[in-house]
């Protein structure tokens, strides 16, 4: 077993789960179906290809920089007559950074890593107009599971965001796919069964919310200045 880590950063991202028609919402963090779709596209699969092998991977996300939700109001006009068409609303996450982790058999993880480095279809963060602003691949972690990989990975938030935190460590939210040992957990309809546009289907999957502590590289370094010592304190 090994873990593939992906960095999902960009001015805009959008991770829809149940959005249809004119109101396209986004979840606050990348969805499994969205990331699996990105990987399937990188492999060059078409939408009717059965995603079962990729869906069987265990999935986790770490929220490195939460981002800001923004609403986009979109109009369309008839190209020839200029007549306006129904308006739609699209929601995006602006300014967010996530780490997505996929755990599975070594050879499949390897293949996905290669695909992310040379994608067949160009990758985007949930919506085509949202290209990543940093390279996606952070490489493979061979020692340990998703929990360990997300715990050890350095904080990938932007420098300006890190500088806003003075403390030496920060607590980052994780959303990790539950295992059979986890007992009762939350579930969301985000387990891809088929991406076929004629019958997209998703099953429920269990998720476990948690936190990891990572160090903040922008925290002020502790200095030798110790006024208490001068006063004879301990």
């Amino acid at each position, binding site marked *: 077993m090994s873990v593939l880590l992906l960095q999902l950063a960009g001015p805009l991202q959008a991770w829809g789960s149940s959005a249809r028609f004119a109101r396209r919402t986004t979840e606050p963090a990348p969805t499994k179906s969205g990331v699996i779709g990105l990987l399937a596209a990188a492999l060059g699969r078409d939408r009717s290809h059965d995603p079962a092998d990729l869906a069987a991977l265990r999935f986790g996300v770490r929220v490195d920089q939460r981002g800001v939700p923004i609403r986009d109001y979109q109009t369309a006009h*008839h190209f020839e007559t200029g007549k306006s068409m129904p308006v739609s609303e699209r929601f995006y996450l602006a300014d967010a950074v996530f780490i997505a982790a996929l755990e599975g058999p070594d050879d499949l993880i390897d293949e996905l890593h290669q695909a992310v*480095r040379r994608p067949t279809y160009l990758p985007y963060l949930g919506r085509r107009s949202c290209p990543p602003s940093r390279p996606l691949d952070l490489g493979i972690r061979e020692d340990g599971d998703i929990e360990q990989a997300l715990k050890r990975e350095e904080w990938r938030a*932007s420098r*300006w965001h890190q500088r806003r935190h003075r403390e030496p460590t920060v607590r980052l939210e994780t959303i990790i796919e539950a295992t059979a040992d986890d007992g009762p957990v939350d579930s969301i309809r985000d387990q891809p069964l088929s991406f076929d546009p004629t019958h997209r289907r998703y099953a429920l999957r269990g998720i476990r919310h948690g936190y990891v502590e990572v160090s903040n590289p922008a925290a002020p370094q502790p200095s030798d200045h110790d006024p208490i010592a001068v006063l004879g304190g301990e």
Partner: protein
Amino acid sequence: MTTRTIVELHAIQTVPPSNLNRDDTGTPKTAVYGGVRRARVSSQSWKRATRRAFHDLLDPSELGVRTRRVAELLAGRIRNLDGSIEETEAWALAAETVQTATGSKIEPPKRNAKGDGPAPAPESKYLMFFSARQLDGLAELAVKGRDDIKAFFKDKDNKAEAKQIANSRHSVDIALFGRMVADGADINVDAAAQVAHAISVHQVENESDYYTAVDDHKEREDDDLGAGMIGTVEFNSATLYRYAAVDVDLLSRNLGKGLREDEEATEPVRRAVEAFVQGFITSLPTGKLNTFGNHTLPDAVVVKIRSSRPISFVSAFEEPCRADQDRGGHVREASERLARYVPEIERAYGVADDAKTWVLRVGPNTTALAELGEEVSLPELVKKVGAEVAGRQSDAS
């Protein structure tokens, strides 16, 4: 490993007070990036501007039409082929043919179905995107099945042919920007071009222009002295970073084997890429264009051809630029940032030798970018990118 060809476009463009793309309250669109508010022009807005530019760059036969009145359009072609067909019969033939080809219902619009006038032409429920060549193919098929069109399309081969026509030899704009037919998932086309939302390299605050308009005809002394009308227009000024990538291999598959029979196999993809490069660089969304007259062109454009994956350079501007009047403002700062950032990220990710690079730039503020690649004018750029793409495509085949 097969050769991959991806074209990347990066542009730095300054727009003075303007409102290129606004939301439902009339406010220019924005987004937060790097922790501060930025001006934003949505990707769909600039894609539409680019598509509009194609009309001056390409032959109508290479372009598509996006319309709900697809039956009316097709009926016109049917009657050109066979003048003996009456208009209403042509509508019916067209509706049945499009319905077969796309799986979408084509019906007379409900809104004016009642009333005494003649019945309106049937329409699709949403905008459909067809190339001129696809419409010609469908028209021929409709004329062939004219005697009993419903029975004609019951035949498996005829039905398959209709679908096949709708699904091949796409126009340049469909091949680049894709087609969505919500009912006929099998004739969707994946867009070969990816256009990001343009965002400003610096922080912006939207401003509001309060205006009064004088009533010229108000001349009698006892008239009130107030303004004829008052109002506000919101706007901002921005130096935008614009990014797009074209997957040339996918574009080539979408276009199919030649727009015309009598030309080289790489000709369609060359022409499409050239039109996209020219159109993306020179086009401008028309929002409030007459109010603000903000007709500008990019100060700098960097074009790269890569063989692995595209890279957006927006991170170079995550920390917002600050204009410095003594040093040359946002354009200079943005150019220097790009000139530093591009070699750095390419070295860090081992893709430094992968790209062929051209630079189009204006004025001393963009001098820093000269070192990134070969300096060219727009006509040279378009020609060189086209030639390179065509060369790589013929090597690959």
